[in-house]
């Protein structure tokens, strides 16, 4: 269960303070597929980043499975991400100096997993890149890179998958493939999936849609 309580995020932009999120409160039960939508600058990506502990809020709290992550140290957050959270970025953010196989391997090596090599092969196979594992990211297409990123995100069997515009840099055909892959993995592993997207068609497929505007939740069809 993810609990967000009175979350606010303010950043300094030049000489002014900019409020990106304003007093957001939410609860996301385990295994739910949530779409976060809203116009550019509405705070969706920031909210996602805060959920992953990639950033810290100006005020408010986030609790994941009873642990308040907003008071954790950087290393504590890193351990949390290693064990519980998978993240997929719009720009893939694969490590360019590692092959596809090594990119998938890395989270498991960080966690010290014993079956890292077998699992990396399995994951690449699941995303259809079993024979591309030895290629570097620059040698892969956008869609292939995102598939590697998905395999990487699932490497440590996370309970929560956060995806920030995963199809944003892809053509429609690739984008659909990626979405199907993610949702299949989500269902197969009973993972809580929080997806930030501009694409209304994709958002409609989620169990729950939360709309943000100017840093506030203006719609939430969960009934909450």
């Amino acid at each position, binding site marked *: 269960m993810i609990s967000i309580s009175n979350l606010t995020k303010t950043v300094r932009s030049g000489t002014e303070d900019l409020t990106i999120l304003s007093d957001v409160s939410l609860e996301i039960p385990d295994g739910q597929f949530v779409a976060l939508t809203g116009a550019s600058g509405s705070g969706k990506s*920031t909210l996602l980043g805060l959920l992953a502990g*990639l950033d810290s809020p100006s005020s408010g709290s986030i609790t994941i499975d009873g642990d308040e992550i907003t008071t954790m140290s950087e290393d504590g957050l890193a351990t949390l991400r*290693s064990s519980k959270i998978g993240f997929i970025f719009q720009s893939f*953010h694969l490590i360019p*100096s590692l092959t596809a196989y090594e990119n998938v391997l890395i989270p498991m090596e*960080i966690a*010290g997993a014993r079956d890292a090599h077998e699992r990396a092969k399995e994951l690449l196979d699941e995303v259809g890149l079993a024979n591309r594992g030895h290629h570097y990211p620059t040698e892969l297409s956008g869609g292939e890179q995102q598939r590697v990123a998905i395999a990487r995100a699932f490497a440590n069997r996370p309970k929560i998958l956060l995806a920030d515009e995963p199809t944003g840099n892809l053509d429609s055909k690739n984008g659909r493939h990626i979405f199907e892959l993610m949702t299949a993995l989500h269902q197969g592993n009973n993972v809580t999936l929080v997806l930030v997207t501009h694409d209304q068609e994709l958002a409609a497929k989620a169990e729950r849609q939360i709309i943000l505007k100017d840093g506030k939740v203006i719609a939430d069809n969960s009934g909450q």
Partner: protein
Amino acid sequence: MNFILNLTAREIRSSWRRLVFFFLCIALGVGSVVALRSLIQNLTAAVGTDARALLTADLEIGSNSDFSPTDLQKIQAAVDASGIADGRNEAITTSSMARPTDPANERVRLVELKGVEPPFPLVGEFILDDGKPFDHRLLENNGALVARILLEELGVKVGDKLKIAEGEFEIRGSFDNEPGGSSGFRLGARVFVQKSAFDDAGITRNSSRVRRRILYRTTDNPTELVRRLREELRGSTITVQSYRETQERLGEQFTRTENYLALAGLLILVLGGVGVWNVSRAFVEQKRKTVAVLKCLGASGGRILSVYVLQILTLGLIGSLFGILLAQLGMFGVRSGFSEQLPENMSYAVTLSTGFQGAVLGVLVSLLFSGLPLMQIRNIKPRLLLRDENNVSIRRLDLKKWLIGALILASLLGLAVWQAGSLLVGAFFLGGLAVTSLVLYLAAVVLTKLVRALRPSRSFSLRQAINSLHRPGNQTRIILLAVGLGAFVVFTVQSLQSNLIREFDFSRNQRLPTLFFIDVQKSQIDGLVDTIKARTGEEPETTPTVRARIAYVNGKPIDYSQTETRQMQGQIGREFAVTYRPGLDINEKVVAGEWWRPEAADVPEVSIQDRMANTLKVVPGDSMTFDISGRLVTVRVANIRQIDLRNTRTAFVFVFKPGVLEDAPQSYAATILSRIGATDRQRLQSDVVTAYPNVQVFDVADIVATVTELVENFVLAITFVGGFVILSGILILIGSVALTKSHRIYENAVLKTLGAERHSLGAILMLEYGLLGLLAGVIGSVFAVALSFAVSYFLLDIEWEFDAVRTLAGIGITTLIVMLVGTAASFDVIFKKPLSILRSQ
């Protein structure tokens, strides 16, 4: 741990091309330190610091005059009382002229003659060229053993006869290495004869440079005996030394030389460290996103830092090992280029200890100089992946960074002290380097600001080139500092070299003699003058010389028991050749007191050279007493003279007023100025020595050639080391070019899109690096001129001249090198297609 090791290996695999300059910088520095240290250590081993063997005894008692019966009694009494002497012999050395007895062979050579008696040597061995050990019977009945080189110089062989002074000696053997080695500078090759032959051949009769030695072998530590002897012989000019003091002194000298040379290597390594710092800085910048991703995936800051520290350590070690290999290649180079000037038994292998030391140094420098850049990894936040913060960061006091910085500085000081072998020298080295770097850096800042004034130029390429020097993330100051420092070192050395060479360019001294004749007796001088006139047409200048020692200064004897005075014993306790004349020589001027008037004064007077006056601490009006052939003569110091040694025939430390020494035992020195050819000089020397065997002839051209060669070799060695400094600077330049390449590619893509043609882009490139080279050259030259002036004037006390041509050439060459290297390293960016580049941004 797997994660750290695996990721380190993968990172090295992918980044090694970008980091190759990292380990080249380290390799160059380590190679320099290892090569220089190994060279000195091997030279030390070859020459030997076995002081007993060098002294050929445990204890040596020396004098420049005969030992008086009283002195001999005192010596014997002290030695007998100690009970530790178990071997004794005496030796006598002087220089003399040697020539073949074959009248068809007119060659003549000055030789360093040594008369020995059995048992010889007391310590060490003496093996001749035929492989047999020395046997004293070879010297009996006027036998001689000669240095191998003399056989070549005189065109003789074993079995031939030589005339030395009034004696004839048969060459019974030759040798390459003599007991005691060939320490010190010698004017002639060594010849061994029997000690008793010296008197028989009249060698010492009229010779002015004779040294007598009594040598002892002891069964125990002779330190106490040395102390007793010095006490007994206080007030005399007899020197006493033991092998232990010699050992300590030699050991200290070699260690000091090794450490000073190692500092030169450390300078190159520190420059390499600057390159490492530069590369690390940019590397961390390029790895920002990777680090953010790793943190996003769950890696802690500490583990990520471990990966990159391990990477640096690995590359540092590889670089160091490569540096050791370079050092070995360098040693082979020294062997092929200089083996003739170095001892035959010298090894050219890198020593194990220096190799290990080099590896440790290389790894430490890598770590120290990459430490601060790597610390930035802590500040990279994973939120970077969500929004690009570039380099904006909140400026707050980073205590850890300051602590690490202080630790790095302290470690660098530790390295410098370790290499220098002295806290003071190490601190001066680091301090000097820091000040020099700071000054050069500030000069770079000022100059780049001044260059901006050229921006309103009509030339688009020039305007862009100047802009490029100031683009965000530019490496301008680093390149200027690194290349400027290299240029500064090389130009300083070159400037000092030209001033030193000019100082020793005796051809500029029109009054420097071609030939110098000494020990000419009164009865011989007229005949000698006639002989010289007949051969050269020149009437030689003749100068009377009297042998004198300082007995008292202001009525007090010189106390050689004081350490400071004993250290100057060689300068003030020796026998001086003094002269007398009515007037000043044209190369002299009075700096204190007054020159004497022709009419006699109440008290005899003397004029003293300024340096000796400083050493003795005398001023005009003081009195000095001289021992002249056993008679004490007290004189008043009339004046102090300065001699221009660059324009002189003779230079006398003491010149007496006429009326004091005319009746004293004296000989004459004669000099000729005519520039005559080598063959004619040989013939003249042969004629003179045949007629007057006691006369010694110094061929000044030979001496000048030897000294000039020594100076040139010395300067060559320094320039060679300086060249490595420049090479380090060039490596940093290449590394910096590589680091800014992506900016340049992007800029060129935009310029091409806006219509710039390739030749314009090429011109911008060449102008940018040309400007950098010009600025670096100017910075290096200006400071080099200042430093070489300071060193020449204050330290070396030699004339300094500004060589405009050499300075401009230096600036030109630096400009050209930087322009060529920078352009060559960046030229390919002109040919890249713009679209793919713009889309990838």
